[in-house]
């Protein structure tokens, strides 16, 4: 990161922050004693989190399901109470999204029915009917299939319309106000349920309360941290949202059991300095609890590695460089190990920094025999009054702070700065997982890593090869603008003339098949772009849901791509594509925006080659 003060100030103002001129001297004092570059980076990250979209749909589904279960229980108990009214009041607060949810359910059902009708039609021969019966049955199934197709288009149109309405509502959505309003009603409901004194009811109520507590919590916590930092550093925010200060007390989230055992941590970016900690909470308590959490996470990682790789031997130790949190040594190569979800290997470490915003670990990795050799060469540890030549054998990191181990020059690992080298290593690691041509019907081996899906992020077995995709795209990010026009022209010409590297009307043998591991989002966007490109080449677009494609692109863009750094006037315009050229433009724009987002996400850190463990 560029630590030039001018650039940092520009970055600060670009993110909507500025020095409070009434407290300029105080600002100068606090800045002198701290790492200002880290501060600016932290503010930027918090701002990004606050502005990132939250999944209201998923929340609404869980919340309404919870309310329905509670209502069923109440009805079955036949209690004379106003609980039903209170439940209804809560449900009424979700009307802005319930139309969308209903349309989505209808669409899912219509899709299933259409697919089934198609399947029945395609497999009519398997029924073993005679010619006459087959003819009649075909007529019936063909009519049914047509009817299902029409119903599907209707459902799609309704869904698109409901989504438009819902997205209009989102423009004025206020998370805090919404949560406060829910909390008021939940508090009233809680009182009514307590009066009934029924354990089942209380349990169901607590489930609903947890859902509300966790909704948007990252944004709320980020806002709190941002406000605290701004207050301590005398920084003002543009168009500062005073809602947190003005709003009544919201229900503080109680400690909720998190399935993956990672607790949210306010990252202490002062950790590497001796500066006074300026966070409003007790500084010492924060630092101690941060260190303990980190130790817990490291121990967790160590135990997970042992569990996932029972035939490998692992040892936990002290890293050779302070940039690492720990050292893990193993008697098998890193690339052969199974790693927990969200963790990846670089050439020298195991880390989750590509997939996590909090509880980031960066653990050095070495071969076990190399570690033992280096330990044998090390100077004795700091004098503790004991035998200075005794080798430290650290099983946990609790003693870390008290041990000072000098770093041998041989342990300084070479920096990989040559991008071509990185690219070579990336190519070796991604995409190729053995030649499947000998056994085309065998299922590929997938690392059996258990994934706790409930309340956890989406499956990440393939998720963060997104970063690998970003590494590959990074060298083309600079050329994106000038390539756009050429690409569009080429696509249209090639699509219309049916040219390309695959000749038409000719059977071509498949010589080799390799497994490709691609991030779900990257694959989805390529799929959408492909569909748009092929659709654009067809003279008659009748029957092709151009509007549906446009809606899909809009949804992906708004939910996963749009941010402070990435915006597309084309995709944000109200005019949806109506023809082949329009849909082609939209598809290309989506891909371009996605590449830009990846390039932005990775431009700060220059990483060595990245891979995900597996066999």
């Amino acid at each position: 990161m560029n630590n030039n003060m001018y650039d940092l100030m520009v970055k600060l103002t670009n993110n909507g922050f500025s020095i409070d001129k009434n407290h300029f001297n105080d600002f100068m004092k606090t800045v002198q004693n701290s790492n200002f570059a880290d501060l600016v980076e932290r503010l930027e990250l918090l701002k990004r989190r606050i502005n990132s979209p939250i999944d209201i749909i998923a929340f609404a589904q869980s919340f309404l399901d919870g309310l329905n279960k509670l209502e069923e229980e109440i009805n079955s108990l036949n209690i004379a109470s106003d609980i039903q009214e209170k439940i209804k009041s809560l449900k009424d607060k979700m009307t802005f999204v319930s139309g969308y949810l209903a349309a989505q359910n209808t669409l899912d059902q219509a899709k299933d029915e259409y697919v089934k009708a198609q399947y029945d039609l395609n497999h009519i021969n398997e029924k073993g009917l005679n010619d006459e019966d087959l003819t009649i049955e075909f007529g019936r199934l063909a009519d049914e299939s047509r009817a299902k197709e029409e119903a599907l288009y209707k459902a799609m149109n309704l869904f698109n319309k409901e989504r438009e309405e819902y997205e209009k509502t989102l423009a004025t959505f206020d998370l805090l106000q919404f949560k406060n309003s829910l909390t008021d009603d939940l508090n009233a409901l809680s009182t009514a349920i307590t009066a009934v004194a029924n354990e089942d009811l209380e349990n169901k109520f607590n489930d609903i309360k947890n859902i509300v507590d966790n909704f948007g919590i990252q944004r709320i916590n980020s806002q709190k941290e941002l406000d605290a930092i701004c207050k301590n550093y005398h920084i003002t925010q543009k168009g500062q949202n005073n809602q947190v200060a003005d709003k009544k007390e919201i229900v503080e989230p109680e400690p909720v059991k998190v399935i993956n055992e990672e607790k949210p941590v306010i990252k202490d970016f002062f950790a590497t300095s001796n500066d006074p900690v300026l966070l409003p909470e007790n500084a010492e308590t924060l630092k101690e609890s941060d260190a303990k959490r980190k130790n817990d996470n490291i121990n967790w990682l160590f135990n997970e590695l042992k569990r996932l790789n029972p035939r490998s031997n692992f040892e936990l130790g002290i890293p050779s460089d302070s940039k690492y949190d720990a050292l893990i040594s193993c008697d098998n190569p890193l690339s052969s190990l199974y790693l927990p979800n969200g963790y990846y290997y670089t050439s020298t470490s195991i880390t989750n920094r590509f997939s996590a915003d909090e509880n980031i670990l960066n653990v050095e990795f070495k071969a076990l025999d190399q570690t033992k050799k280096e330990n044998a060469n090390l100077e004795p540890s700091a004098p503790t009054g004991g035998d200075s030549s005794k080798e430290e054998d650290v099983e946990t990191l609790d003693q870390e702070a008290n041990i000072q181990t000098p770093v041998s020059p041989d342990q300084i690992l070479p920096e990989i700065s040559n991008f071509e080298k990185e690219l070579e290593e990336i190519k070796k690691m991604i995409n190729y997982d053995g030649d499947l041509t000998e056994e085309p019907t065998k299922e590929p081996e997938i690392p059996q890593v258990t994934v706790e899906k409930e309340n956890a992020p989406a499956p990440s077995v393939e998720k963060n090869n997104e970063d690998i995709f970003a590494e590959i795209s990074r060298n083309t990010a600079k050329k994106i603008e000038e390539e756009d026009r050429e690409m569009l022209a080429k696509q249209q010409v090639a699509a219309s003339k049916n040219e390309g590297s695959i000749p038409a009307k000719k059977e071509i043998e498949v010589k080799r098949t390799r497994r490709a591991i691609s991030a779900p989002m990257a694959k989805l966007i390529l799929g959408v772009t492909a569909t748009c490109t092929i659709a654009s080449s067809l003279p008659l677009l009748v029957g092709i849901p151009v509007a549906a494609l446009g809606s899909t692109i809009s949804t992906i863009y708004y939910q996963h791509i749009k941010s402070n750094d990435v915006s597309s006037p084309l995709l944000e315009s109200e005019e949806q594509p109506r023809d082949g050229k329009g849909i082609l433009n939209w598809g290309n724009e989506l891909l371009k925006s996605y590449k830009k987002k990846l390039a932005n996400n990775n431009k700060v850190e220059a990483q060595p080659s990245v891979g995900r463990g597996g066999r």
Partner: protein
Amino acid sequence: MRVDTVITLENGVNCLLLEKATLENENYFLSVVLNESEEPSDEYVVLKEILKDDKQFVIKEDDEQILVKLLNLFTLNLNSEMTTITD
């Protein structure tokens, strides 16, 4: 052939298979041609799978009516996948 695989054709072209759809008992794959650096290019094709003499072949689909039906199915698949992806 399966989705999420890279196939190498006899003319040396590599294709990444993105989506699969079945129509009238035939398997079709929405694919992107990979360039020399094994990155997705701008060329997208729909390939029809043919199994013959224990070998796998593909043929580029260019029948408009079939492509229209396939694109509908691919769009449905993509919509379905979209709802399962979270960041």
